[in-house]
């Protein structure tokens, strides 16, 4: 089972929306049953980036983990969503 962590500032609002979008996308690809999604706030999980196959954030993350984190804001604005899904699928090792 692959794992995805979705974080925002509070773990309530935008992470919930981004998680929903990602789940819908995985469902459409038939991959949802292979993935477990989690959500939380950045402060709580900032040191656990390596514990998940994919780490997605709607907020700015510290520079030292920046390269490992996918920016999920396009999932909220609708501008550039394909790129985000591509990055997620790459990290999961699933076919796009």
């Amino acid at each position, binding site marked *: 089972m692959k794992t995805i962590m979705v974080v925002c500032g509070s773990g309530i609002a935008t992470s*919930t929306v981004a998680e929903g979008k990602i789940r819908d996308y995985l469902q459409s690809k038939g991959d949802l049953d292979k993935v477990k999604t989690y959500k939380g706030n950045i402060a709580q999980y900032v040191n656990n980036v390596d514990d998940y196959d994919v780490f997605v954030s709607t907020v700015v993350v510290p520079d030292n983990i920046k390269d490992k984190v996918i920016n999920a804001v396009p999932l909220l604005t609708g501008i550039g969503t394909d790129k985000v899904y591509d990055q997620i699928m790459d990290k999961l090792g699933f076919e796009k």
Partner: protein
Amino acid sequence: MLFDKDVILFDKEATDNKDALGILADSLYKVGCVNKEFKPAILERESNFPTALNTETIGVAIPHTDADKVIEPQIGFMRLKNPVHFLQMGDNSDVQVKLIFMLALKKSDDQLKMLQTLMGLFQNKETLTQLETINDKNEFLKIMKNVGIIK
């Protein structure tokens, strides 16, 4: 329901984003939807984790904070007379914000659909244009019903 306390403000003048957030947070406090800690928490969170989004047409912001400051779920809406400067969520780029939806929400999964709908609204140029031009609360509520944010 989410807009029933009438925190729906048109063409407010604000000197900067803190001023704008303060006006809206005070309004939510006055109608009893949030506690005293809500306003400082909103301001602090905005400076740590900005909430503005550049849509294809105008800047919007969705300030929010932890659920424990919320007494009754509510969304406060404010349209600014003149846009004020915010930072964009996720990358701290500049956004001139015209519309603010202040989310006072409790932790709950049934809000997912509503939040998704609200984000969907930001991708709908026609609705955003309507929100820029309308002038009364009933029209606002009608739009919120049409797009499915409230029933």
